[in-house]
């Protein structure tokens, strides 16, 4: 089924349009704001991470440079200046001074000869039983590239036994040195073991914020030097992309590692080639954005609340005059006569004026139409009446002529006298509406004239109720009926024709009946009496019951008029049915003006005249 949706009200439409528009704008604004914040926040995090890494990188470099300086100082100021065979105490003293000055970051300083035997060490400690340093990584590296200093990755120091049952985690700085023993120069290895805790402290410091972002340190091969999840990585609980990252140059990189997208910031530590790596998982960026997300959503919601109020005010302001105008027009259409609303904006005011003018014009036109209609009805009535007058005059004059020719002068006098009465009532000072009493008088005069003409071949009786006399009727309605009764009903009746005129008042209606005992009509003929005005009449002028019926209906309405009842060889009764409007000057004028009385008006009138 095709259901047509109900048209929306203007206020709802305006509010919906405004709301959709403002919601869209707010949504776009919110998204743009969020993206802008997000990008700015991401940029800030990256920049601050870079700065922190640069600072830490510098600290690490300083730390490592200081270690190298210690190594240089031991080598150039202590080892090179002294012979191990004769000046071992000076060497020990020099090493002790340097160790003590840097003991916070140092675990030990040791010198080994090219056989791997310990020559000097600080602090003085018992060497482990056969540590075999020649197999240790730092020793091998030193001899591999004799011109360089080598930093190892963190490892357990496996050199001395200090009886503390402890193991130290160190980073070894080793180099080949030229030492003199008994005046003979030879190669050895100078080992400076840095306490891993120094680097660990620095790295822990920058890893203190546990927000997902972290930093680690690896060598140029990706071997991890410090990672805050170092053991987890070794145990396979956690993973790090250090081997790949070690290949990166300094800068910021995008990285997708084990399904996690992250920013990788690389900072190379000079000389060692170590990489300080900062990892910012994308989740960290989002973490910082949670509060902003909530803030933006709450802001949008509050703005939406405010905009809904504003939209409501605007839509009410715009639609209110239109609604008022619509209301007044609706009332007007319902039949009331309200003032058309004129207010609001210029356009609505103009519309109000325009509608008001239109209604005024419609009223004028209606009035004009009513007048024109009345005029038309009057002219129609006049035309009908003018059709009757010549017809009757012809008949009357024909009868008088016939009397005079038959020297029946008295009858002619009576005839003329009756004719005079007839005409007086016919004229009725030009009135269309007369009282029934006059109409009956007119009918009597007419019948007297006709009786003369027809040599009293029929009898006429009037039986009219008294209260009927004072009611209004259209004049000359009975005369054509009587004429028909004489012409058609009395034909071939041979002095036994009877015509009876009755008048009754019942249910607010007056019924004037003309009954004859003539030849009557068939049913078919009865049906044509009031409908076929073009019938060829056997007698008379041809103006018949159709005209009478039309006149009654023009003046009293369609529910009134003639009723013809007839039986062949039984007779015919023609009844005039009209409303029982009391005859007063006012009612007469109203009827003549075309006013049709309702039943209530008739009742009211009747009550007034009783």
């Amino acid at each position, binding site marked *: 089924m095709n259901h047509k949706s109900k048209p929306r*009200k203007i*206020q*709802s439409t305006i*509010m919906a349009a405004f*709301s959709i528009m403002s919601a869209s704008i707010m949504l776009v604004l919110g998204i743009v704001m969020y993206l802008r914040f997000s990008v700015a926040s991401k940029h800030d995090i990256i920049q601050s991470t870079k700065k922190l890494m640069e600072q830490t990188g510098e600290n690490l470099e300083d730390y490592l440079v200081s270690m190298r300086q210690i190594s240089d100082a031991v080598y150039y100021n202590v080892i090179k200046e002294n012979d191990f065979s004769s000046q071992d105490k000076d060497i020990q003293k020099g090493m002790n001074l340097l160790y003590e000055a840097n003991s916070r970051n140092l675990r030990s300083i040791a010198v080994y000869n090219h056989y791997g035997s310990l020559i000097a060490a600080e602090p003085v400690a018992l060497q*482990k*039983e056969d540590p075999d340093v020649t197999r240790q990584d730092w020793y091998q590296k030193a001899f591999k590239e004799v011109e360089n200093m080598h930093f190892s990755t963190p*490892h*357990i120091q*496996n050199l001395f*036994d200090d009886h503390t*049952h*402890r*193991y*130290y*985690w160190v980073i070894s700085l080793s180099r080949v040195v030229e030492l003199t023993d008994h005046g003979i120069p030879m190669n050895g290895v100078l080992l400076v073991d840095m306490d891993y805790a120094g680097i660990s402290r620095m790295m822990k410091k920058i890893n203190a914020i*546990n927000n997902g972002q972290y930093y680690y340190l690896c060598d140029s091969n990706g071997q991890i030097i410090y990672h*805050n*999840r*170092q*053991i*987890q990585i*070794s*145990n396979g*609980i*956690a993973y790090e992309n250090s081997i790949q990252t070690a290949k990166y140059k300094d800068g910021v990189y995008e990285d997708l590692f084990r399904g996690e997208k992250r920013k990788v910031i690389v900072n190379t530590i000079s000389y060692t080639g170590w990489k300080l790596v900062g990892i910012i998982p994308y989740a960290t960026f989002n973490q910082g954005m*949670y*509060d902003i997300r*909530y*803030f933006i*959503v*709450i802001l949008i*919601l*509050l703005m*939406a*609340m405010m905009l*809904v*109020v504003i939209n*409501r005010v605007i*839509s009410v302001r715009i639609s209110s005059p239109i609604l008022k105008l619509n209301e007044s027009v609706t009332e007007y259409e319902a039949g009331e006569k309200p003032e058309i609303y004129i207010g609001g904006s210029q356009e609505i005011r103009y519309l109000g004026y325009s509608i008001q003018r239109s209604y005024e014009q419609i009223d004028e036109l209606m009035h004009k139409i009513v007048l024109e209609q009345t005029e038309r009805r009057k002219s129609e009535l006049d035309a009908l009446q003018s059709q009757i007058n010549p017809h009757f005059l012809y008949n009357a004059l024909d009868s008088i002529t016939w009397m005079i020719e038959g020297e029946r002068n008295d009858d002619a006098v009576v005839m003329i006298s009756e004719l005079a009465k007839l005409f007086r009532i016919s004229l009725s000072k030009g009135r269309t509406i007369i009282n029934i009493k006059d109409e009956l008088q007119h009918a009597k005069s007419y019948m007297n004239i006709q009786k003369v003409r027809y040599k009293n071949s029929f009898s006429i009786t009037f039986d009219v109720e008294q209260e009927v006399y004072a009611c209004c009727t259209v004049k000359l309605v009975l005369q054509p009926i009587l004429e028909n009764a004489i012409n058609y009903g009395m034909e071939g009746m041979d002095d036994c024709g009877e015509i009876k005129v009755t008048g009754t008042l019942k249910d607010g209606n007056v019924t004037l009946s003309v009954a004859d005992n003539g030849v009557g009509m068939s049913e078919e003929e009865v049906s044509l009496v009031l409908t076929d005005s073009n019938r060829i009449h056997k007698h008379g002028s041809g103006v018949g019951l159709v005209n009478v019926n039309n006149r009654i209906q023009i003046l009293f309405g369609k529910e009134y008029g003639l009723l013809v009842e007839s039986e062949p060889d039984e007779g015919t009764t023609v009844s005039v049915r009209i409303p029982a409007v009391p005859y007063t000057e006012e009612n007469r004028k109203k009827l003549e003006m075309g006013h049709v009385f309702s039943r209530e008006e008739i009742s009211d009138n009747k009550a007034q005249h009783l």
Partner: protein
Amino acid sequence: MNNSGKWFHVIEAVLAVMVILMAAAMLLEKNSKQYRKISVVIQDAEDTQWAAFRYGLKMAAQDQKVELVVASTADVLTKEEQLNTIKREIELGADAVIVQPVPGDDLEQKLRHLEKKVPIMLVEYTAAKEREKSQFPSVEPDHSAMGEALAEELKKDYCGNLSGKKYGILMKADAPHAMNSRRQGVEKALQDTGIVCSWVVDGSVENKPEVDIVIALDNNSLIKAAEQAAANNLHGALVYGIGNSTQAAYYLDTGSVECLVVPDEFSVGYYSLTEAAERLRHFFRGMKSRVVAYTVIRREELFEERNQEILFTMCQ
């Protein structure tokens, strides 16, 4: 009130409710960032043997973003002391408790009563006599396998020819189930080799009959045996043992101990706390029991890279 007026009030009300919900969500999110607290009750919490275990706990707490509290305890805890310590930790706001159970027949039952308040995870061994009958999840090494591995190393050293040899077992009495498992593991591996067990003791080996081999089944026993070996009080007996401290490693390094089996205490700490934290995060998720690995270390292998990491965790 006309239709549009009704809609206006409905929209305003819906928006107001959404603002309130968002504000509440924001506050809840901030509150949810407060860390949950997990307490750990172990015997002699400050002892060096717990270094790796504590480091594992610390790393897991960092990964899981929970607050870790290790209750300070005496060298030896009685059942009542341990239960009181657990209750105190719960009263102090612990959301979960990790417990190394002390010996006691009805400890499991008592712990079950406490478990109604907070989740409890056991470490090192279960509170029930048999592991399978324990109703608590636990993270522990395979005690029997460790004993067996230790005995296998002994067999290797003697090329399986242990006939006529004698050995003594040194083990602590405060973890009878775990120790018995380790002992059963040793005995299982040594059966049919001809070696004879001379004694099984808790504490000192002094005044014990001479043996060729001393097998220490826990860290403290191993250190005691190693100390005796270092002082030449064992009459040349070789020491094999299970230990998890730098002292134990030191005695291996210095030759007082022939072979050391090291349980992965880092994993015990890490997984026990991870399981407890996961349980707190997901209410309906049960905690799973885990068996962690162990490493057999010989003197010459002590400073190999993989073993250095074990030492690293013990050094923390």
